[in-house]
């Protein structure tokens, strides 16, 4: 049966609501939606996607759009207009996912109890199945696939009862009364339900995560500093790190310590329903300056702008990056876009406006066993000079006299933590497990559904076993010669025939 016939059979213009239900619940609709989502994923792979940096920064967005137009001169406007450069955040992706969730929900209901949801219930189904039987005088169908019959002496009720018993021993669940001349039997039909439930959990978890999840990025903690976590948690945290693989977190509620956690590098830790990650442990240097009279000297850094501080903290990285002002215009999918002044990771500047002085500080990690402590180099420049008039190396806490003022340097390690809450993840991972179990079980044991019918002909009872495509959806049609063959059906027929014959012999 083609897709057009399938939907035509599900549509009844007399009953629009039922028709809509059946069309939305159709497995064909599921397939169309999955293919549409695959097309969206393909767009995301083929076409450049607007990165998060461009969404956050209007200037970066403008630069990225300009670059897009230069790279795709004829089609960029079309891509932008139809939202093809942001498919992962597009409303129509969410619409497709929402429609898929509805389709899966209705499809699951229809799969679990198919006859109940047919237009006129089980009776209508029976009538439709019965219409496939040969009429009096007509030859029994050649049973090219899916239909088998057997003739037995005796009453139809007895034969049906025996056949139902045999099917039950084979693990089939019988629907309908075995006193009747038509029953519906199914086996392994709940395995696909696991897939339905799993997919629904994944979609539900993703939706819940999008609505309720929050993450705090780059949460920086100086040594000994206690910072409130916010987000109505009522918690504050203190971090201690020695620059190694571990970061120790201490949690406070009010002034009372309520818990401790040790974060390993690149591994999460759970506390009070919050997930914590130690994303980095950065070497830092606190710098203060006093004049000869003991008064504080105001300091600036390029990162903090024109604001002057009595004390500044410089964060270093261990790697050396090229020092330049760069505009990142990466059009490859997932590539970053943005502007940043990228200093060497191990180099920072402190400006002293009142003295027209600049300090350059360089960090060198202590790599060797004999010299494990990190080393700092300080160079002082006057005005626009490029040659330092002062240069000194130091490790550990130190105070240096530079141009008449006393500068105090205090090396530290900062902890950079990421934390947040996402209950949707539980649903998503639970859904993935159910999906996996459902796919595995339904692959090993395909769902088996058949109809068992009896018909009295010349004092004999003819039993018919009919398996049809689309019985899940309640679609019935006389099976054509092109239809599929079901190996399991052959086995069921063989078992039923053998056991019925054994009963007859007894």
């Amino acid at each position, binding site marked *: 049966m083609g897709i057009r016939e399938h939907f035509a059979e599900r549509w009844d213009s007399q009953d629009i609501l039922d028709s809509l239900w059946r069309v939305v619940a159709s*497995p*064909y609709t*599921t*397939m169309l939606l*999955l*293919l549409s*989502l*695959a097309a969206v*994923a*393909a767009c*995301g*792979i083929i076409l450049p*996607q607007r990165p998060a940096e461009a969404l956050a920064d209007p200037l970066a967005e403008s630069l990225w759009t300009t670059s897009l137009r230069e790279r795709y001169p004829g089609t960029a406007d079309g891509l932008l207009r139809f939202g093809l450069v942001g498919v*992962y955040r597009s409303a129509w992706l969410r619409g497709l996912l929402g429609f898929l969730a509805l389709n899966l929900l209705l*499809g699951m209901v229809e*799969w679990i109890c198919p006859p109940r949801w047919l237009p006129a219930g089980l009776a209508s189904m029976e009538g439709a199945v019965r219409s496939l039987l040969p009429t009096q005088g007509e030859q029994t169908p050649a049973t090219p696939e899916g239909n088998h019959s057997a003739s037995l002496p005796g009453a139809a009720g007895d034969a049906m009862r025996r056949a139902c018993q045999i099917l039950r021993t084979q693990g089939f669940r019988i629907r309908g009364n075995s006193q009747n001349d038509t029953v519906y039997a199914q086996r392994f039909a709940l395995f*696909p339900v696991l*897939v339905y439930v799993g997919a629904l959990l994944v979609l539900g978890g993703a939706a819940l995560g999008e609505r309720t999840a929050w*993450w705090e990025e780059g949460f920086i903690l100086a040594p000994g500093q206690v910072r409130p976590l916010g987000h109505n948690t009522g918690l504050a945290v203190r971090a201690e790190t020695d620059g190694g693989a571990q970061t120790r977190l201490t949690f406070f509620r009010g002034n009372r310590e309520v818990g401790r956690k040790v974060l390993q*590098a*690149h*591994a*999460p830790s759970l506390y009070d329903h919050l*997930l914590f*990650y130690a*994303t980095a442990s950065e070497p830092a240097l606190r710098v203060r300056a006093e004049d000869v009279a003991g008064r504080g000297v105001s300091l600036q850094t390029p990162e903090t702008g024109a604001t002057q501080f009595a004390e500044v903290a410089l964060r270093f990285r261990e790697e050396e990056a090229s020092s330049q002002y760069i505009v990142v215009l990466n059009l490859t*999918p*997932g590539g970053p876009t943005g502007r940043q002044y990228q200093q060497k990771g191990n180099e920072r500047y402190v400006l002293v406006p009142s003295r027209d002085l600049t300090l350059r500080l360089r960090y060198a990690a202590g790599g060797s066993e004999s010299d494990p402590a990190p080393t700092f180099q300080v160079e002082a420049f006057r005005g626009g000079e490029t040659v330092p008039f002062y240069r000194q190396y130091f490790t550990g806490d130190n105070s240096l006299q530079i141009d008449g003022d006393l500068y105090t340097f205090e090396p530290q390690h900062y902890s950079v933590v*990421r934390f*947040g809450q996402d209950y949707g*993840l539980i649903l*998503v*991972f639970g859904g*993935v*497990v159910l*999906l*996996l179990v459902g*796919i*595995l079980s*339904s*692959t090993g044991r*395909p*769902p088996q559904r058949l109809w068992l019918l009896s018909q009295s002909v010349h004092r004999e009872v003819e039993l018919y076993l009919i398996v049809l*495509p*689309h019985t*899940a*959806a309640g679609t019935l049609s006389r099976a054509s010669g*092109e*239809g*599929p*063959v*079901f*190996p399991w059906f052959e086995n069921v027929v063989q078992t039923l025939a053998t056991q019925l014959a054994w009963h007859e012999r007894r």
Partner: protein
Amino acid sequence: MHISETFLFATGAACVIGGALAYMMSVMRRSVLPGDQPTALGTAGSWRNIEQALGLASFLCTAAGLVLATVQGNRWPLTVPTEVVFASAGFALLWQIQQRQRYQPRWAPLLCYLLVFGLLLWAIVRWPTAENVSRIEEWQQAWTATAHLALAVACGAFVQAGGVALASLLSERDNQASSPQIGSNVALWGLAALTTSLGVTSVGGLHTRGMPWSWTSSESWQLLLWLFYAVLWCAQRLLVLRRRQVCILAVAGLLLVLIMLGTTGAGPT
């Protein structure tokens, strides 16, 4: 004698060609003499045994090459995209050997061998030198290796199922006699492996980056493949479509897998 991984991969590819030739010999033996003659069956059977042995040898050579590359690189296996292509070819051979007792269209094994040979050849040409082997951080490698192992099992299954489906489509006579389940169950087992790969990728992402999903190229490709083979699952388990329609879907899936492996969409996450 110093054996390099490239030598092992090339030996594996040569074994695949040998297996294909042995299969052709077995088919020709069956064609020349009437099939029910014991001599004909015996000769064809021995060629089939040679074919199976060469297929297994090819898998072992590929696996040995991957192990050697891993040991020499002092890193986790399957962290390089090209290694995923090698592993996919190896698992396609394993799936083919596992399916040998089941009915297949006549030219299906030959097509599978040709596909596997193509994959091996492509991977050998692109095999990275020691300088640009892996850019994945050490702490990420365990997750990546596990996810890529499941991905390679899945891709192998898709390649085998796609080869059988293509052979089935090309052979009209086989079309009428064969079962709707030809090659398709392998694709569904592959879908289960791909689901595992996606699950491991997201758990690994959550564990190492704090994000279960970040729409990287590798993740997007895996999701695309999963969605496509989920359609195949619906077609077989919910609708029971005709075999020809299922075969068309399996062949389209094979094309997607080849594009993914060809563009190294299975690259590091």
